[in-house]
């Protein structure tokens, strides 16, 4: 047995560094979302993506953490609710742990390390919403919604799955957050996109109009950063420097992304005649989202399959949401919602018990029958109902109270001038006809 102090140190170093990488994903989201939007809204999108993490940081500290990890019932945390105020003797683990946050006492790092790592995940869920509501939402309403996300919606689901709640008790397993982070963000985004309605011009004339993004190089940079950050997101979710697990997760994560890039590119090549860069980028993210839940629970071969499927799904979904007249400027729904759900189910299909140590039982394809798959399905469904419902309610209340959509004039001229009084690219000649 190795020196326990050393283990705490190395685990903490690993958790902190991977958490920093996940934090860095905020830059990635900002790049992707503003790159896929129009120049006249670039400042607004940057502002949203920037302030969203500030709001999450405050909201998750004040209440979110407590609701998510506080000892409580199957649905909510109840102990040490506010500002990490609960008793805690971290890094003590297992039975040695005494405190208000037992659900996360399996990892032997200081409380603040746990908090910081969980905080960056909360921020990710909140930022996903930003993309789907882009180019038309009121800045202030978005900020308020972000607080609701970080303080209530995200932590409640988090409690169910990672906080010792009812879903975890049913054996549902979401290793790094395909459901907890991505589909939670996705369902909230869907509610927002539907309630806001499409951007002016998107579906006006009956048929679907393309609204090209203003800076695809920026979107590409953003996607690279997200891919990079995912090496914190997934391998870091071990919350311990376990050599076998972290290297396995890094490889499955990367190969799923690679496979999805290929299948999404080929798919768009086939369907549209040319390989659309936007689809290639969305494909990468789709693969990463899909492998997030299973990354430590499946083999490298399964990861390739999961990636290939994710890449096909995302292209179909982007086109599908347009057909459904749901306007998602950056493809956030196709990436995070659709593939968050798929990744969650993929665990039920491809999981191999203890492949990196985590006991999950086998998935359907490995003789585990429907037990695990059932739990995953139930989780996906119940999260859908709760998050979509809660988010829709929140959006509708905000709509009634303060309004959530900018005026037609402002939308036409651009939210940069309207909401911020700034121009994204002062001096540049930009056609703002669309």
């Amino acid at each position, binding site marked *: 047995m190795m020196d326990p102090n050393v283990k705490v140190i190395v685990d903490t170093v690993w958790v902190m560094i991977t958490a920093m990488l996940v934090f860095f994903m905020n830059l990635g989201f900002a790049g992707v979302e503003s790159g896929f939007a129009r120049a006249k809204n670039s400042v607004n999108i940057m502002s949203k993506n920037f302030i969203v993490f500030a709001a999450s940081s405050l909201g998750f500290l004040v209440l979110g953490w407590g609701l998510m990890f506080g000892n409580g019932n199957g649905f909510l945390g109840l102990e040490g609710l506010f500002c990490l105020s609960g008793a805690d003797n971290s890094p003590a683990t297992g039975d040695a742990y005494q405190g208000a946050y037992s659900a996360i006492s399996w990892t032997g790092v200081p409380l603040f390390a746990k908090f910081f790592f969980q905080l960056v995940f909360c921020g990710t869920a909140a930022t996903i919403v930003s993309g789907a509501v882009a180019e038309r939402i009121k800045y202030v309403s978005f900020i308020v919604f972000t607080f609701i996300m970080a303080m209530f919606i995200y932590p409640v689901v988090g409690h169910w799955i990672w906080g010792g709640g009812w879903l975890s008790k049913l054996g549902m397993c979401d290793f790094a957050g395909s459901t907890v982070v991505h589909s939670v963000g996705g369902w909230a985004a869907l509610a927002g996109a539907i309630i806001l309605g499409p951007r002016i011009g998107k579906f006006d004339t009956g048929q679907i109009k393309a609204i090209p993004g203003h800076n695809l190089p920026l979107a590409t940079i953003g996607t690279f950063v997200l891919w990079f950050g995912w090496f914190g997101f997934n391998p870091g979710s071990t919350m311990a420097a376990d050599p076998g697990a972290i290297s396995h997760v890094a490889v499955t994560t990367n190969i799923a992304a690679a496979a999805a890039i290929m299948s999404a590119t080929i798919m768009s090549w086939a369907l549209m005649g040319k390989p659309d860069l936007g689809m290639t980028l969305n494909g990468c993210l789709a693969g990463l989202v899909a492998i997030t839940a299973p990354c430590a629970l499946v083999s490298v071969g399964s990861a390739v399959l999961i990636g290939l499927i994710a890449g096909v799904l995302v292209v179909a979904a982007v086109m599908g949401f347009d057909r459904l007249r749901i306007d998602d400027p950056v493809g956030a729904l196709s990436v995070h919602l659709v593939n968050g759900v798929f990744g969650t189910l993929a665990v039920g299909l491809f999981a191999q018990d203890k492949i990196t140590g985590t006991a999950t039982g086998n998935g359907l394809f490995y003789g585990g029958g429907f037990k695990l798959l059932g739990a995953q399905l139930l989780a996906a469904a119940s999260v859908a109902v709760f998050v979509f419902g809660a988010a829709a309610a929140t959006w509708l209340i905000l709509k009634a109270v303060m309004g959530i959509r900018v005026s037609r004039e402002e939308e*036409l001229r651009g939210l940069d*001038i309207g909401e911020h*009084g*700034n121009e994204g690219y002062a001096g540049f*000649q930009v*056609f*703002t*006809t669309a």
Partner: protein
Amino acid sequence: MKLIIAYIQPHKLNDMKQSLYRAEVHKMSVTNSLGCGQQKGYHESYRGVPMEVNLLRKVRLEIAVNEDFVERTVEAIIEGARTGQIGDGKIFVLDLPECIRIRTGERGGAAIG
């Protein structure tokens, strides 16, 4: 022949293309421009410093047509660009003594369309 120059609101460009097509005017040139007119512009502040923006984004059209097309073109522009609000823009009509199609060397009315 006449050369018609029009300044319109950027977001009306698509409507105007439609109305021009309906008037069977298919050829045009578009540039973007900054305009200063009745529309007084707006006040913003950048890093705490107030700034008055009085050059607003406009789109400039140039359409060369034969005499008999002038009126319908002007009407089509008005139809497509008009909102009734300040800032709608202007149309200027100039005489166009000569027009040449580079590809064929054709001159005059034949080269316009």
